[in-house]
């Protein structure tokens, strides 16, 4: 059986060098651009996708002993410490580093190089709030009249969900965040598994009953870019309450044990080079980390939050697992914030 299949699936011809890139579902770059790189470098690129950012990193960690790829792209700052602690990445000081915005070079050991960044932010449905008041602060959201308007993603199964949870921890503190989430639960917040489910089944713009959704600060711009009737302004807006949005920086790293270190470095350099960085905004709806790249016109609708919440990768590494567990206990298992706090030793 296996032999027969092997014959059927044998690759037609072995390529000179094939570089395998492990990445998440949202990875996308212009096909022509990729083809140009392949021609110029003589490297054939093979992309492997494995769900979202968290799942992808876990698959790299799980297969540490026998790596399935040469390069890992798409783990963000909330996963950075986990990736570094797992010891799956090789250091590489790319010659492109000086052209990148230094505030995003979060790994002094250069095992993870920043490729792009964006913000997880609250979006609202403009039609719903035309003559209604919007919440003014993050804490406002937990009030019953707003909690029943909000849909969030489960931080245990979604990276924007985790980012929003981290924002609440950073803004409201170790104790306050649990009270906030308890308020949301009592007020009737809706929880979905992932971004697609939240945005396309729960968000009122797409037929759901929730005019507030945890999404990205670039979503309104994408709504305009992909609108059917070519609108002049997006149907959704960013609700940038202080401390409600969270910076996400996405990294690339070379996996330990790669048999093609030279090709892997070439690919990383190219990902940080001008042509690839210029392509990133409208392909993945994030900002390039390179300083000398002009943004496309439609990005004027994508606001950069003035007061995003911040947590260091170290603090995230120490707390994330526990915060997600406590969130699950309070929001899904229905325990009280007080009881959960008491259970902390």
């Amino acid at each position, binding site marked *: 059986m*296996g032999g027969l299949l092997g014959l059927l699936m044998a690759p037609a011809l072995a390529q000179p060098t094939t570089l395998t890139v492990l990445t998440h579902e949202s990875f996308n770059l212009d096909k022509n651009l990729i083809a140009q790189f392949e021609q110029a470098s003589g490297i054939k690129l*093979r992309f492997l996708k494995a769900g979202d950012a968290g799942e992808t990193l*876990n698959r790299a960690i*799980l297969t540490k002993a026998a790596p399935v790829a040469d390069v890992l792209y798409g783990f963000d700052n909330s996963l950075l410490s986990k990736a570094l602690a797992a010891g799956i990445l090789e250091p590489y000081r790319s010659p492109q580093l000086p052209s990148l915005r230094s505030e995003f070079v979060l790994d002094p050991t250069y095992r993870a190089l920043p490729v792009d960044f964006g913000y997880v932010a609250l979006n609202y449905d403009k039609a719903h709030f035309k003559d209604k008041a919007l919440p003014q602060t993050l804490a406002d959201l937990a009030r019953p009249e707003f909690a029943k308007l909000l849909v969030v993603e489960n931080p245990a*199964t979604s990276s924007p969900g985790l980012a929003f949870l981290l924002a609440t921890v950073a803004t409201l503190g170790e104790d306050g965040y649990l009270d906030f989430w308890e308020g949301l639960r009592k007020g009737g917040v*809706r929880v979905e598994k992932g971004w697609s489910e939240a945005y396309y*089944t729960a968000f009122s713009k797409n037929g759901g009953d929730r005019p507030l959704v945890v*999404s990205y600060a670039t979503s309104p711009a*994408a709504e305009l870019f992909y609108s059917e009737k070519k609108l002049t302004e997006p149907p*959704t807006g960013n609700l940038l309450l202080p401390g409600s949005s969270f910076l996400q920086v996405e990294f690339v790293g070379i996996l330990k044990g790669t048999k093609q270190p030279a090709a892997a470095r070439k690919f990383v350099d190219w990902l940080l080079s001008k042509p690839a960085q210029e392509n990133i905004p409208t392909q993945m709806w994030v900002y390039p980390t390179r300083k000398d790249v002009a943004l496309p016109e439609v990005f004027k609708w994508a606001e950069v939050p003035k007061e995003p919440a911040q947590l260091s990768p170290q603090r995230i590494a120490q707390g994330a697992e526990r915060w997600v567990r406590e969130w699950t206990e309070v929001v899904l298992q229905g325990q009280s914030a007080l009881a959960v706090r008491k259970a902390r030793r």
Partner: protein
Amino acid sequence: MRRLEPARCGAWLVWVFLALALLYPLGRILALGLGEGLGPTLANPYYWGRLAWSLAYGLGSSLLVVALALPLAYAFRYRFPGRDLWLSLATVPFVLPTLVVALGFLALVGPRGVLGVDLYGTPWILFWASAFYNLGLVLRMLVAVLPALEPPLAAARTLGASPWRAYWRVGVPLLAPALLAGGGLTFLYSFSSFGLPLLLGGARYATLEVEVYGLLAYRLAFPEATALILLQLAVLALVSLLYLGAQRRLALSLSAAPRPKPLPPAAAWRLAAGVWLFFLALYAPLLALLARAFAAPGALASAWTGGDFTPGALALANTLRFAGLSLLVALPLGFLYAYAVWRGERSLDLAGLFPLMVSPVAVGLGYLLAYPSLSGSLLILIGAYALLSYPLLARALLPAFRAMPKGVLEAARVLGAGPWRRLLRVEWPLLRPALLSGTALALAAVVGEFGATLVLRRPEWATLALAIYERLGKPGAEPFQEALALAGLLALLAGGLFLLLDRGRRGLG
């Protein structure tokens, strides 16, 4: 020294495949989690609550589906306009990605649904969804069994039993195994269902399977996940044993292909009206989805060429290609499995249902550990698809095997045909109709969303289901419309495949 019999060879082959494609990878994952964490997990009342809900959902679904399918199966004993069409279409929901089905339900009875009733987050919508998925399977089983009740019932009547008494004392005991089998299969599917409860019921209605997914894929929390997987396996193995017991007691000799009875035209139309109404109501979410999908005709055209996303054309080609390749594996497997079980290889009976019982996420991660050098190869993908589809094929074949007229086989043996020759010249032709039916089901399992989370895959391998998810991962009206258009295409493709293949209606076992 036993002779090399086809049944024995078949059983061995199936075991080898199961060991490679399921037991070894799953074992690798469970091994990571055995030890410390099992106790605390099992002590957490939250997980027991999840188990309780999963059980309630499974049981409620099977009762509901059986209660709906039985009267319907009686209607299907008669010939009426549209009978064959509905019997074929009843299995289409099986192939649709859950996110798409959820969109259909929400378009109809969501917060802003066309009907104006909001069922989101209520158990009602979940049970409806379960009937939507499973009714077709159970209906096909019962349609195959009911005609076989006629002779014994007639005999009881001749011996002086009143119609009701005959039914209670003869009909019901004969029917019970089929009802148990149908209910059991529905339970298996609902208990371990993943997407729909979560999408339509919100996080409150997550099943155990959802917990396993979160624990494994996001947290790498192996001890907790292992505990839950074992718990799930225990429940499902128990139910499967009941189901298999029921199946073996299906002592009715099924007539080759039950022919529907003719009705006078007026009655036939009345019956048709009733059945059509029922199905239109049951499948209304699908119709709502199709209506939305083809509302914007431009969307299909732009989805076809792709733009920023996987082109629909490529996704369609991939879907057909992978379906074909996995059939190459699943067909012989399913056939050999059914054949071996029929020839009395009892050990296989439960093991063959195994793929329906384990968490796909666990198996997928197991593949990475077990076969790192193969990850991202077509071999793993096809193996996974075959694993998920062959049990369905085999379940469809088994009743046909059991219904083969013994006289013919005996005659062949007396006339000196060996087992291999009998298999090729006698049994194979008798089985072909059921095989086509089973193939249709197996295809359904493959063209649907299975495997989406299962293995590492390459973008150039995107199937229709994945192309739909990809579009639903971006904000904006255009990707959304394209996703709906592709979902409509997927539904039509599945329906078309069924109508083509589903000539030999034997029902399922």
